[in-house]
């Protein structure tokens, strides 16, 4: 940029300044939204966690019970995915990270299809050679439980109709305002191991549960009644459980998106500031150079007149 004149530099400063204003505003909007969605996430976590713990308990106790939603199918012909991404860009690597994670996971499967949630997820998969049986677009920034139920209904039908033999949920787990990681969770058939690693495991809750279990065993009460029957309970309870997992995934992703956008905009703002500083310095130099040159010319002119 050495060759730029003063006027060009001035113009650039102006343009970078207006960019900074935009990114700054977006940062503020994102942090307000982050606060809001995060509050909702905190409220929803006990629900997801309770389901997770409860279902882990069932799976442990009902080992050996044959149920279409629990027993893996012998041959996996087709694998279904639910990929949750954002509906807008300008949020750093948030969207790319989650769809890439899903894409990588899909490479190990024979045949796949994807139910996309969010505009960006759809954009990515619709351009690739993947079947997209349905996409959920235009979900609110704060997801609703009804959205989760809608997604579950569709996917469960596909599973029950035998069109897919397993279903994975890909979402972004919100760990802190600067850390969010894409996660792949095996949704159907229910998988104990997969479940243990997903969402936040509350250690104290686990220990409490363990203690209760031990106390029950000591009292010779280890036998839990499943009313009306094991299979019936699973059949009626699993849809609710799936709702809670999808809802959890939606919530975690929504908060991650806002957090990612805030961080991205924050760094964009600081980059803009650095750039303005640099340009300002250049401008001052150019101005100084111009003045020096002018003086030199005047002096030179005066010399010549003598």
């Amino acid at each position, binding site marked *: 940029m050495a060759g730029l004149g003063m006027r060009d530099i001035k113009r650039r400063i102006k343009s970078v300044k207006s960019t900074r204003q935009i990114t700054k505003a977006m940062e503020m909007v994102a942090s307000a939204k982050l606060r809001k969605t995060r509050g*909702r996430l905190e409220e929803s976590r006990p629900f997801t966690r*309770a389901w997770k713990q409860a279902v882990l*308990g*069932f799976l442990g106790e009902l080992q050996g019970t044959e149920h279409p939603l629990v027993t893996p199918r012998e041959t996996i012909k087709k694998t279904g995915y639910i990929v949750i991404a954002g509906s807008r860009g300008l949020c750093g690597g948030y969207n790319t990270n989650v769809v890439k994670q899903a894409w990588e996971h899909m490479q190990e499967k024979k045949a796949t299809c994807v139910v996309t949630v969010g505009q960006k997820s759809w954009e990515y998969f619709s351009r690739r050679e993947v079947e997209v049986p349905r996409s959920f677009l235009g979900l609110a920034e704060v997801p609703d439980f009804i959205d989760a139920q809608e997604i579950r209904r569709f996917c469960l039908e596909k599973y029950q109709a035998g069109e897919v033999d397993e279903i994975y949920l890909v979402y972004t787990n919100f760990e802190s305002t600067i850390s969010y990681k894409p996660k792949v969770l095996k949704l159907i058939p229910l998988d104990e191991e997969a479940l243990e690693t997903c969402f936040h495991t509350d250690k104290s809750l686990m220990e409490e549960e363990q203690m209760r279990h031990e106390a029950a065993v000591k009292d010779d009460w280890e*036998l839990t009644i499943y009313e009306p029957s094991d299979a019936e309970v699973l059949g009626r309870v699993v849809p*609710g*459980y799936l*709702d809670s997992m999808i*809802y959890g995934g939606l919530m975690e992703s929504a908060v991650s998106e806002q957090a990612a956008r805030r961080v991205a905009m924050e760094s964009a703002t600081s980059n803009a500031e650095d750039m303005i500083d640099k340009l300002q310095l250049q401008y001052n130099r150019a101005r100084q150079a111009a003045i020096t040159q002018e003086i030199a010319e005047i002096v030179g002119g005066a010399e010549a007149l003598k």
Partner: protein
Amino acid sequence: MAAKLHLEIVSPDRVFLDEEVDMAVVRTASGDVGLMNEHIPMVAPVAVGRIKIVQEGKVREAACADGVLKIRGDHALVITEAVEWIEEIDIQRARKARERAEERLKAKSDQVDIDRAKAALTKALNRIQQYEHHQK
């Protein structure tokens, strides 16, 4: 007084209740179940209906949607997709939901929609019933 039962009720948007109670009555798929401390360990699906809670002689009631009930020793957990105190029921909304569901049932559509409308209708009727019962 016998030892109390710790009752926890969670829904997607909040921890509805996390308190010690004397007794609770929860509607499961196979009928109302009374819960007290030292109940036999049990798991049952929760049906759309009412949850009655007895605390220090006082009775509180809540309308509840589908979910699951799990009880072991002195701890009972109800996870449900929606729950509210009877006083909190938005009766206008429930009535509107009933109308919507009825309309959808009349307009003959495919089986999925009918099932969904039926489920919505059950929930709306439950709320209305409980509300009206409470008003009396």
